């Protein structure tokens, strides 16, 4: 990516930051090299990282992960 962010690139970054565009597609659309470029572009344009969408399927995955992780993180097993 070039140093300055063009308006169309900024729009892509905003779409990524608001969860409207996936990581791989954002990298491709920007003409960026990889995810490191994407982080740098987001940070240098003061944009947030996207948060996962709150869907029932996502909540189910998090609940299953929680059941595994919390005992290990709190008690080591």
């Amino acid at each position, binding site marked *: *990516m070039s*140093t300055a962010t063009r308006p169309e690139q900024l729009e892509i970054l905003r779409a990524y930051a608001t969860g409207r565009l*996936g*990581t*791989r597609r954002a990298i*491709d659309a920007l003409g960026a*090299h*990889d*995810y*490191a*470029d994407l*982080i*740098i*572009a*987001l*940070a*240098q344009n003061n944009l*947030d*990282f996207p*948060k*996962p969408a709150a869907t029932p399927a*996502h909540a189910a*995955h*998090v609940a*299953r*992960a*929680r059941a*595994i*992780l*919390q005992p*290990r*993180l*709190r008690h*080591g097993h």
Partner: protein
Amino acid sequence: MGIDVAIIVTDVPPLITLAAAQSLDYLLYPTLPVIIPDAVFHEATYAAGKLGAQEILEWYRAHTGQVRVEPTEAFQAEMMLQEAMPGRRLARDLGERAAIEIVRNYPLAENGRALLLSDDRDVERLLVFEPEKAILLTTWDYLRQLEDAQRIQSADAVMEAVRQAGRDSPRRDLWSTHDPEIRDAVRAVIEAAQRGHSPEGKE
């Protein structure tokens, strides 16, 4: 005997995000095996000066007992193509294909579970093979689990550290060249993984 639970890092963003925040050790907190497909490790580390690359390489070297770079046929085939056609770019979906191979072949116990750490929204494709065994988690979700268990102060603070690293990062033209030392180190890690164990987990 299979593994009960493992964390499989199925794409590059979680590694780079945590490395940028100097927080890769967070992956070790649940004391579970951490599996990184060779293609994902290569993509995250191959370029000198790339955000997080050096940290990931050093972190892996310091924790080879818990962190494993798993070889895949997808990556080996891609490397052979590269040798035959120097200068050819790696396939865009290589990391995903390698991750699918690991998810399909990793020796989980009958009731085992794999926590797939990924920030790619298309990663649902990984669930086709073992939907009951695979649990998808983004880096943000993982950090929130650490926060809930009071192992870190704040997931937001980690993401702010990543933002700060991005702001301070050098421009691409300063860090796009490959450092031979890094390149050789990455190659050595992957070759050791290929020699040391197969995707089926045989030592």
